[in-house]
C-alpha cells in the first residue's frame, strides 16, 4: 500500500525533526515546511493526505494558513499543533474548519494514532479516483 503523505508545518526546527521521525516510524511519508507560505506552496505542487499545522508561526500564523488551505480544499484533514492548552484557540481553529487539535505536550504517539484513525475514515469517503 502506498505510504500516506503528511505535510508538517512548524517554525521550530527541532520539533519538526522529532515529529517527522515519529511519523515516519508510523509509516508516513513526511514533507516539512517552516511557515505558512512555504506550506501553501508545497500544497499547490504536491498531493498530501493530511496536514499537521502549528498555530503560532511568524509571518503567517496557523489560523491564517488554515483559512487559505480551506479556501482551496474543504476536505483535506488539517490538524492544528499547539503548545497552548487553552480553549480559545481550539474554538478558533474549529470555527475555521480544523479537523483536530494536537497539544504538543501530550503523548504524541497516541495523538498520531488518532490521526491514523481519522485518515482511515477519510479514506472510506474518498471519491474513487481514476
Amino acid at each position, binding site marked *: 500500500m502506498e505510504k500516506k503523505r503528511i505535510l508538517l508545518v512548524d517554525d521550530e526546527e527541532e*520539533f519538526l525533526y522529532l515529529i517527522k521521525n515519529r511519523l515516519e516510524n508510523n509509516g508516513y511519508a513526511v514533507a516539512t515546511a517552516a511557515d505558512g507560505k512555504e506550506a501553501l506552496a508545497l500544497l499547490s505542487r504536491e498531493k498530501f493526505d493530511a496536514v499537521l499545522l502549528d498555530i503560532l508561526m511568524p509571518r503567517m500564523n496557523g489560523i491564517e494558513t488554515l483559512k487559505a488551505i480551506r479556501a482551496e480544499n474543504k476536505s483535506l484533514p488539517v490538524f492544528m499543533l499547539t503548545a*497552548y492548552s*487553552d480553549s480559545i484557540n481550539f474554538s478558533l481553529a474549529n470555527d475555521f474548519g480544523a479537523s483536530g487539535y494536537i497539544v504538543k505536550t501530550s503523548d504524541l504517539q497516541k495523538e498520531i494514532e488518532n490521526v491514523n484513525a481519522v485518515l482511515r475514515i477519510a479514506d472510506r469517503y474518498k471519491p474513487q479516483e481514476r
Partner: protein
Amino acid sequence: MKTNLKNYQRFSLFLILVFVTESLIMLIFHFVWEALHLPALIEAAADALLLMIVIMPIAYLTLYRPMALNMSFKEALIRGIPFGMDIIDKEGNILYTSPRLEAVLGKDLLGKKCWEVYRDNKTQCADCPLLKNNIDLERSGMIESSEILGGRVFQINHTPITYQGRKAVMEIFQDVSERKAAEEKARVFQAAIKQIADIVVMTDKDGVIEYVNPAFTRQTGYSSDEAVGRTSRILKSGRQDEIFYAKLWKTILQGRVFHSTVINKKKSGELYYSEKIITPIKDDSGNITHFISTDRDVTERKKTEEELARANAELRELDKQKSEFINMSSHELRTPVAIIKESLSQLADGLCGEFTLEQKRFLDISLRNINRLIRVMDNIFDISEIDFSQTFLKKEEVDIVELARRVIADSRPQAKNRGIELKESFSREKITLNADKKRLNQLLANLIDNAVKFSEKGYVEVKINDNGQTVECGVLDTGSGIPEEDIPKLFNKFRQFDKKPGPGDRGVGLGLALCKGIVKLHNGEIWAESKLGEGSKFTFVLPKAEK
C-alpha cells in the same frame, strides 16, 4: 331721541319746543281767526286744546319715554349686577340693600352696622373708608377685606352718593375668594419655578423664548433679557447634529415629550452636559401653544460615568495584557518542554535503537518528571486562565458517565501501583449535561488523582447521581482524612498540607482550586467532607442545562 341726555337738558329741550310750537300755532290761529271772524273765547279754547295735543307727544318723546327707558335700565342694572350692593351712612348704618343682597342675607339688614352684618369678627375692616376723615368719603375707592361672611375674601368698591338727602357711601361687594386662592397658587408656583434648581425655559410654539427662570441665568450666564425673544439656539454647542434636532422637533410637534441628554454651551463658551425634557403645552382644543423645557446639569454625573468607563477600559486592557503575558509564557515554557519530552519519548520507545534496562530506567525517570512538569504547568496556566476572565467555556452535551469511566480507566495504573481499588458506583446509563468537556475531564481527573494520591490503602469510590435538574458527583477515599480546620481553606490556591514523605506527585496545591474554578464557571457548587483517620469525600453539583 337719545336717552343719555341729562334730565335738565331734557327739560330745557321740552320747554323750547313747547314755546316754539305754541308760538307758531298762535300765529296761524290769529290769521285764521281774523279771517273767519270767530269770537275770542272759542279762539282761547281751541288754542288750549291744540296746546294739549301738541304737548302730549312731545312730552312723551322727550320726557316720559327716556325716563321710562332710563328706569328699566336702572332696575335691570341693579337686578342684574352679580355683586351685592348696599348704601351706608357716615356711621356705617345700612340704608339700602340691593335685591341680590337681600336674597342672600335677608331683608332686615336696614339700620344695622355694615361690619356687624358682613364681618365674621364683627369689627370694622382695617382700611374702612369710614375710619378715615370725611375727605375720603368724597372719593371712590376699593378695599380688600377677608373674613367676610364665613372666611371669604371680598373686594369692596365704595362710591360717594347722596341718598335720601344725606351723604352716604354706596358699597359694591365682589367675592374674590377663588381668585385670591388662584393667585396664591400661581404665586407659589412662580416662586417654585424661580427657586427651583432645575432650569425652566418656556417658549412659544415656534421655539421663541418667553420666559427663563433664575436657574437658567445661573447656569448659562444669559440674563432673562438676553434670552427672551431668542431661541434656544443661543445654547447650541454644535455637538448635536441636524438629525438630532429634526427628531426633537418631530417629537414635540406631535405633542410628545422629548427626553435626551445634550451638550450645551454657556455664554462663557464653556460646555456642559444637560439632561433635557421638553413638554408641549396644549390648549383646550389640543393645539400646542407653548413648550416647556426643563434642563438639569448632569456634567458631574457624565464626568463620573466617563471616568468609570475609562477606568474599566484600562482594567480590561490590563487584564488583556496579563492574559497575553500568561499565554506567551505558557507557550515559551511548553514548547521546549514538548521537545524534551518527545525526544526522550522516542528514545524510550526504541525509535533510535535499543537501550539497556538500566539506561531505559534513567529515561523513564526523565519522562515521568517531564510529565509531572507538564501537569504543574497545566494547572498553573489553567488556574490563571480561569482567574483572568478571558476564559469562556466551550459547552456541549457531555455524557458525564462516559467521561468518568474514561478518567477512572486512565487512573487505574496509578491506583494499582499504590494498591488502591477504584470503585465505580454509578449505573452505565447516560447522564448528559451542558458543559465544557475538557474542563469536566480536568475536574474529574483532579479529584480522582487527589483521592488516589492521598490514600495509602483502601479504595477510591466515584459516585454519580442524576438529580433531575442537576448532576451530583462524589469522590470518596479512605485516606487519612483532613483536619476540620483545614477544610475551609481546601479550595484556596497554593495551599499544600499533608507533606508526608513518600512516592507520588506533590503538585503545587492548585488542583482543588482549579476544580473549584471549573465548577464555578459552570454555575455549580463544590464542597468537601472529611473525618480524620477515616477518609474524605469531595462532592460537586452541576446544573444540567445552561441557564
